[in-house]
Each structure stands twice: as C-alpha cells, then as structure tokens.
C-alpha cells in the first residue's frame, strides 16, 4: 500500500496499565493529523478507539452535519453500524427501507458516489425515492465511500451536509483517509476475540435497534411461514406504504402491536 497506510496497534498506557487501542499513522502529514483527531476523541472519553470516533472526527473535518458507517449485510445492502446523530440515523434507515441511495450504490459499484446536490436533476433521477426524502431531512449533499480491501467492499462511510456543493480537494482527501481508518478498525475487530469485536463494532444503541429489525424479520417469517427475504420485503413495503420508519415498524412487530398473518388486513397490499 502507498503512503497514508494507517495501522492500528495495541499500546500500553503506562499511567493506567490498561491496554489501549490507538490508530497510528505511519506516514503522511494528513494521516498523522487525522489519527491525532480520532485518538483525541477516544482519549477524551477514556475508551478504546471505535467507529464512533472515526465517524465523529470525520464529520468535524469535512464540516458535515453527520456521518454514518455501514457494513455489508446478507441482503447485499449496507447494515448501518453507526451514525453520529438522529438525522444521519434516519438517512441510513431510509436507504435500507427504500433500497437505494449513495451508500447503497457505492457498495454495489465499489466506487465513491459523490452527490453535491440532492435537489438537482441527477440526484432526483438516480434516487427518485431517496432523493426527496433526503432533502426533506435537510441533507442536501451526500458523499459515500466504499470501505474496500482490494476487490472486495465490506461497507461504506457516508457524509451528510446541510448545503449543496462538492467536497473540497482537501476534504475529499481527508474522507479517503477516514475511510481507510474505518476499514482498518473493522479489520482489527475481525482479528480480535468476539468480545472485543462487539465493543468495537456492534455495541451502539443504533446497532441494537437494528437487531430488533432482524428479530422482526424472523417473527414475520414465522407468521407468514415464509423465507426471511420475503418477510423483510413485506416489512419494508409496509414502512414504505405507511410512510413510517422501518425501525418503528420493527419495534411494533417485536412488541406484538403489528402482525403479518395471512388473515390480517395489512397483508393485502402487494410489495412495491
């Protein structure tokens, strides 16, 4: 790999003797600066570096209203892993509900998808469902970067801005480095023992709410006696049709307030 390779390593903090994970830059001023920003956030909290810190530092660096990270999941979509704020959470939820959007496309096409104007013709044509919803949320610029290892994309990092306009050259370069850092953290987590992996990747509130979605999918598949893919599509169709948030629909299912039996009236609608 070229300059800008970021390695994470375990170093001992002598004062507290707790093993700390730091993201360490091995070359390039940009990488050093970015690693310092990420490490600073983690140290301020007194916790090991996680995706949360990478996302927050990225949002600060590129003057964004929020950042989200996805991991690729079994339906070929991104599974939101973390989002810095409620608006960003909603945007990721929208992409999973609607099955379209910049991060979704970045994952499919293994290349950055940079949309400086969600109100413009290109965005409206490319994402006819997601575009207007994103604008309605006040997110006018969306920039998605696949997290890749060679030929394989394992996730995406998505940047949200409240105004139109492209990322500057510096911001773009920074975004690539942040994506690399996110990739490195994920790589390290895969090598770690399961407990550490949970801590690094999967233990945010947002992540737990996505667990509820999968539970709902399981429940609906049992209610319909169908495959999980069918159940997922039905849940998604319901959210889409009623204009409700997917996670909210999932919560209703898990708590017994919404069923998808053959007899129930909810099932008469065909999937979009």
């Amino acid at each position, binding site marked *: 790999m070229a300059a800008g390779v970021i390695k994470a390593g375990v170093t001992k903090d002598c004062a507290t003797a707790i093993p700390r994970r730091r993201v360490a830059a091995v070359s390039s001023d940009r990488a050093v600066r970015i690693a310092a920003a990420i490490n600073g956030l983690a140290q301020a909290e007194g916790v090991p570096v996680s995706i949360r810190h990478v996302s927050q530092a990225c949002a600060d660096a590129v003057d964004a209203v929020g950042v989200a990270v996805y*991991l*690729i*999941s*079994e339906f070929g979509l991104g*599974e939101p892993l973390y989002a810095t704020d409620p608006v960003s959470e909603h945007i990721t939820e929208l992409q999973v509900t609607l099955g379209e959007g910049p991060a979704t496309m970045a994952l499919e096409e293994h290349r950055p998808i940079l949309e400086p104007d969600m109100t413009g013709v290109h965005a409206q044509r490319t994402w006819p469902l997601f575009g207007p919803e994103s604008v309605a949320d006040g997110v006018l610029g969306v920039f998605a970067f696949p997290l890749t*290892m*060679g*030929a*394989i994309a*394992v996730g995406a990092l998505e940047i949200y801005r409240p105004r139109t306009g492209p990322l500057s050259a510096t911001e773009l370069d920074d975004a690539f480095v942040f994506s690399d850092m996110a990739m490195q953290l*994920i*790589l390290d987590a*895969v090598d770690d023992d399961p407990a550490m*992996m949970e801590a690094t990747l*999967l233990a945010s509130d947002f992540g737990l709410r996505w*667990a509820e979605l*999968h*539970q*709902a*999918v*399981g*429940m*609906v*598949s*049992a*209610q319909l*006696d169908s495959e*999980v893919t069918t159940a997922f599509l039905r849940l998604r169709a319901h959210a889409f049709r009623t204009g409700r948030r997917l996670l909210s629909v999932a919560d209703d299912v*898990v708590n017994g307030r919404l069923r998808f039996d053959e007899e129930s009236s909810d099932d008469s609608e065909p999937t979009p």
Partner: protein
Amino acid sequence: MLDRQITQTFVELADTLVVGFDIIEILQTLTERCVDLLDVDAAGILLVDARGTLQMVAASTEQARLLELFQVQDEDGPCLDCFHTGEQVACADLTTEPQRWPRFAAVARERGFAAVQAVPLRLRDQVIGAMNLFRAEAGAIPADTIAVAQSFADVATIGILNMRALARSEQVAEQLQIALTSRIVIEQAKGALAERRKVSVGEAFTLLRAYARSHSRPLTDVARAVVNRDPTVADLTLRKPR
C-alpha cells in the same frame, strides 16, 4: 529474435497480475524460459510458505528439482544464501570453492552442474524466495543475463505478493461477512422462535442456547436451521401443548 522472446516472457509474467492465474504454472514456465533464453542448462525456484519454510515450487529439469530439494533439506546452497541475504549469489566454478557449500557442491557436480547463479525474489524489504540458474560448464554467467533473470524474478515477485494480498483480503472479508451474518441469523432466529413458541424474544434466546448445548450443535447452526424452517429442529420450534 532473442529480445522479442524476452519481451514475450515479460508479457507472460504479467499474467500474474491478473486474478485467477496459476502461480505454479507460471513459475514453471519461467524456469523453462530461462533455460531457453539465457544460455543456462537448468533453473529452479524456491518460495517461502506461510509458515516461513522454503519450498521448491518449480524447476526446469528433474535434476534441478533434486538440487533445490537438497538445498532445502540440508540448509546449504546458493539459493538459501540468496534467500537469507536478499542478495544475488554466484559461483562460477563449484570445484574451486568446495568449502562454500560442501554438500550442495558435491551433489551439483554429480548431477553435471559446474556453475550456479542465484537471484532473489524480492520487493524492497520483502524476500519471498530465490531463483537458481545452473550451467554444466564452469564460467561466470554474464552480467546482462543475470540482469534479465533478476527482472523476470522481480515481475514474478510483484505478481505473487499481489495475489497473496488479494487472498488475504478475501479471507478477511469472508470472516467479516460470517461474523456479521451469524449475528443477523441469531436475531432472526430469536424472532422466529418467539413467534412459533409464543414466548418473548429473551426467552427464545434462552431456548436456542439450551437446545444448542443439549444437542452439541453450534448456536449459529441451530439459528440457521430455525430460520430455514429445517425439520431437524422441529422439536425446538413446535409449540408445546399446555
């Protein structure tokens, strides 16, 4: 004519940069090309494996193959020195330097080889193996021959490292996929079992784990079976009569 054949060899080696090539096949071809084009009588290649052990992977003749094997077994020979130092190693006449690699030299002479040249398979600090060139006649192998051999080795090295990086990244991506998918399947199974058994999601998880333990099956397996409506777990998913 020779130039064109040398160029053609580079083109063949460039295949190593393409996904799906057979590394052993390409290295075997390389040893044969060296014999055809570089006025040597035999060539052999050693590569270091994932455990750090040198393995003979290709040779142009059975004799060269035996020599490479011998070197590896007995830790004595120009290819090994080349690998350990990362530098080119040569001997123009094995009879005049018997003390250098005593056992290798004896076997080489027995097989009819008098001169040897080793070039490293190296990219910057990484040495992944070495290539040996053998001649029946004593005499130094010319510098431009060595240069071409080194260039062949350099291209092959880049191809091998590229292939290994890709393999590792595929492996990690797979691991990540498995870890993530397992988690998803377990959540789906919790939901499906909660519905089938009319219990809470938490209770469903307890049932899943107990079943996995008592049947000595991994939790993820049981979860997958529940989600796939596999009849083998019917005793878990059927609603129990009150």
